[in-house]
């Protein structure tokens, strides 16, 4: 079977109008939900390691629940269950007009926090008990000890894994296609359907995802060697 690929329609204009906006949104979605997910995930990790049973319990249920449901379902559920008024409240008319995009950002933040929290938990546990003791011994409170001693070391130990998870997150943004958010894949797909060249564009989308993710992975590998704390 000949594929008969024809990319002649793909001009700079098409890229600018259809694909670049999708790429920008995918990038925003990745960065905002990675940032939010890491912050939220760090709190969840601290709760999971807390000595207060209620907090521990809550965090465990949060993580287990979200890790047991496919992301696609969470995206759909969130989009369908949250009333439009919510988006109007946080971003006005702009929010209403971009409901799928906003919904996806919130969903991804909440969902990825579950994964980031497990990474941060491992990171926090990689810092020795003696470091915590030393922090307390010089008079730090729990929060000072975490902020100044434990978390900086945990982040450093876990940075490569956090970044790798973020690359996975970037690939997963393609799932928001399901609720009609205009992401990178949707950009390719839209251009493809306008010019009746869907096969070409889906193929190209895969190549673009691969090149971006693979080169980022390589960068992470380089970084890993650089940032290790001298012991």
């Amino acid at each position: 079977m000949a594929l008969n690929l024809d990319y002649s329609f793909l001009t700079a204009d098409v890229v600018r109008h259809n694909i670049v906006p999708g790429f920008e949104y995918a990038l925003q979605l990745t960065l905002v939900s990675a940032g939010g997910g890491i912050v939220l995930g760090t709190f969840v990790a601290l709760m999971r390691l807390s000595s207060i049973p209620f907090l521990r319990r809550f965090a465990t249920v949060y993580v287990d629940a979200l890790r047991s449901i496919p992301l696609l379902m969470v995206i759909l559920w969130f989009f369908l269950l949250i009333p439009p008024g919510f988006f109007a409240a946080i971003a006005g008319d702009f929010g209403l007009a971009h409901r799928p995009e906003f919904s996806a950002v919130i969903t991804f933040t909440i969902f990825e926090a579950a994964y980031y929290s497990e990474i941060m938990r491992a990171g926090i546990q990689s810092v020795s008990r003696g470091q915590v003791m030393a922090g307390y011994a010089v008079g730090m409170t729990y929060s000072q000890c975490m902020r100044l001693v434990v978390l900086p070391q945990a982040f450093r130990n876990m940075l490569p894994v956090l970044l790798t998870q973020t690359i996975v997150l970037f690939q997963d943004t393609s799932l928001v296609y399901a609720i009609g958010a205009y992401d990178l894949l949707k950009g390719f797909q839209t251009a493809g359907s306008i010019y009746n060249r869907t096969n070409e564009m889906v193929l190209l989308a895969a190549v673009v995802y691969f090149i971006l993710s693979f080169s980022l992975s390589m960068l992470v590998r380089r970084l890993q060697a650089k940032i290790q704390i001298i012991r």
Partner: protein
Amino acid sequence: MIDIKNISKWYGSFQVLTDCTTTINKGDVVVVCGPSGSGKSTLIKTVNALEPIQQGDIVVDGTSITDKKTNLPKLRSRVGMVFQHFELFPHLSITDNLTLAQIKVLGRGKDEALKRGLKMLDRVGLSAQKDKFPGQLSGGQQQRVAIARALSMDPIVMLFDEPTSALDPEMVGEVLDVMVGLAHEGMTMMCVTHEMGFAKRVSNKVIFMDAGKIVEDCASADFFGKPEERSPRAKDFLSKILQH
């Protein structure tokens, strides 16, 4: 200055400390010794409440550590502690290790903290290392920085938890020298250590522990000078440790 009153501690059902009582006065240099697993390190960590106790009370400079109203971080900021494994903060430079708690805990200004920190670093003879990171120093140097870090906080008492046990033999001396200097300056010190030479020369009081109990609590001169008056367990320990 430190009153340890009838304290007991359990890890689950295992009792690590049984009814320990002792007093440390201002200017005392107290050495805590005994076989491993006897509860020495646990005892010293209860003094600044790093290890909680289930019975009894400890009063440090008039403040009870079991009182719910006691601000433990504040109390700990006045009690210097040196650990077996140094526990310098590996992600911070030596200078930052020295100034961090001064700034964040004591609320000192950056310049004041730096001045105080560098003075203490000079005191332990490591001024040249101020811009390095802990991982770039030898064990003995790290432990001396750890002592300088504790001293920067202007502590009323210094606790040493086996400060030389993790060191290569040739580095033990440099750390002990710093400790001897401190003792001669009149610093109140409580040291868990196996360095019996240090105990003999510098300490004025020895606490000997076995199986979570304080078996001996006497003047150093008596502990080393009158072995015939010691309990059988302490005699046995001394004979093993002093025969070489």
